[in-house]
């Protein structure tokens, strides 16, 4: 039995038609940490997030530690409402707040992300990176216990991606809540994750779980143990590594 302050998948099975995506999939990690899921494209990472949000239900098994959690999400696509301004896009997900509280919260997050001066602009006038920052803003502003990030930096160039990874780290340091971060980029995972789950191709199994105790934001990727971790994850993803190494 997994304690309540852990988030876990317990012998979860999930298929779509004849395709088995998760087959007896289990993991458990403590709440309040950043958990990175890394694996090859199409390995079922998004299905794991959909199961966490409740958009999908497991065929068998159960997910623990997510009941009654307020869940926020950044999707692969920005999913902004084009007919709403930058401010209104954030306001859309904020309920049960007075107008003043809402505006304060919006302004706070827009300033933190450097989007305050664009608060009255429509998404069509923003660059790809700004739209992604707005999606992050919306997710951070939404009162949440669990934040899901589904490859949100996939289509961005390296400098912008690094900037946004630092923003996520900064946000977590200010307000440490559970983050499940799906990525296919090893560097992103090493910069952010307290736990890195390396996943196999379908049906998904956990090839290895790495635990990193250096806080996000204080990590120097060029220094040990990161190069070793990098090579280990790369080897696992390429099918060369030994399982359950760390």
């Amino acid at each position: 039995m997994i304690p309540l302050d852990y988030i876990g998948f317990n012998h979860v099975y999930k298929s779509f038609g004849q395709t088995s995506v998760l087959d007896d999939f289990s993991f458990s990690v403590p709440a309040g940490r950043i958990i990175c899921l890394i694996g090859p494209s199409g390995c079922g990472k998004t299905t794991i997030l959909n199961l966490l949000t409740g958009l999908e239900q497991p065929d068998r098994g159960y997910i623990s530690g997510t009941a009654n959690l307020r869940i926020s999400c950044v999707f692969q696509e920005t999913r902004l409402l084009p007919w709403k301004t930058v401010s209104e896009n954030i306001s859309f997900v904020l309920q049960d707040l007075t107008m003043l509280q809402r505006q304060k919260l919006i302004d706070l997050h827009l300033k933190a992300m450097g989007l305050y001066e664009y608060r009255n602009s429509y998404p069509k006038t923003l660059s790809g990176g700004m739209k992604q920052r707005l999606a992050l803003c919306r997710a951070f502003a939404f009162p949440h216990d669990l934040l899901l990030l589904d490859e949100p930096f996939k289509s961005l160039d390296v400098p912008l991606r690094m900037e946004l990874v630092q923003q996520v780290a900064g946000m977590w340091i200010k307000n440490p809540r559970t983050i499940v971060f799906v990525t296919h980029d090893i560097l992103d995972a090493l910069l952010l994750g307290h736990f890195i789950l390396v996943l196999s191709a379908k049906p998904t199994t956990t090839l290895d779980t790495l635990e990193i105790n250096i806080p996000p934001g204080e990590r120097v990727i060029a220094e040990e143990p990161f190069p070793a971790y990098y090579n280990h994850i790369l080897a696992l993803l390429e099918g060369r590594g030994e399982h359950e190494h760390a």
Partner: protein
Amino acid sequence: MKNSFLKSKHIAPLFSLVLFLAVWQFISGFYNPVIVPSPIETWHSFFSLAVSGLLWEQGRQTIIRGFAGFGLAVLAGTPLGFLIGLNQTAASLFQPLVVVLQVTPLISWLLLAMIWIGFSRVPLFVVFITTLPLIIINTIQGIKSVDLQLLQMAGVFRVDKLRIIREVYFPQVIPYLFAGLAAALGTTWRAVAMAELLSVNQGVGAGMAVARTNLETAALFAWTIFLIILGLLTDRLLSYLSRQKLNQWK
């Protein structure tokens, strides 16, 4: 050079209008004015109808009836379209009826309305019943085309259903609704004139009935031109409103 002159936004329509008038004038030269009046005779008739006040008085009646029937169809059709688009049970119940409304000939509605509700309300009823399915069908199409990813996003953030309808569905339905309104407006002026022709003694259709009885073909053409101008003006107005509404974010 000549081609770019003709392609210019304002010159090409003007050129086609002049060409149309020239062909009309040419053809009218071969026929008695009772069969094909010339553009000049038509203009004279239009002018005398306008000066006598008949054009405005009859036109006003037609415009009021047309907009009343059209407005009622929008008020009833938009929520009905939302209901059918969003609710499977409502779709099973009402969608076949919408198809029946759509395929029933205009003349059947006209004759039935004369029997059911009396002559004076026939134009309004006919406009309502013929434009209603256009509004409903376009609203349903808009709902079916709503971006599922945005709905999923709103679901994850637990946005309440009413706000989802108002703030996610409605803005995406608007372009389809405008397309429905444009089609419905075109139908409105045709339907109201035909209903007036057969059922009442006021309005453009009634004016056309008088012109036909008196063999005043130029007046018949003048009334037709009035309806065309009305259709063009309302269509332009709708296009303008649509652009105003959508250009901000599209």
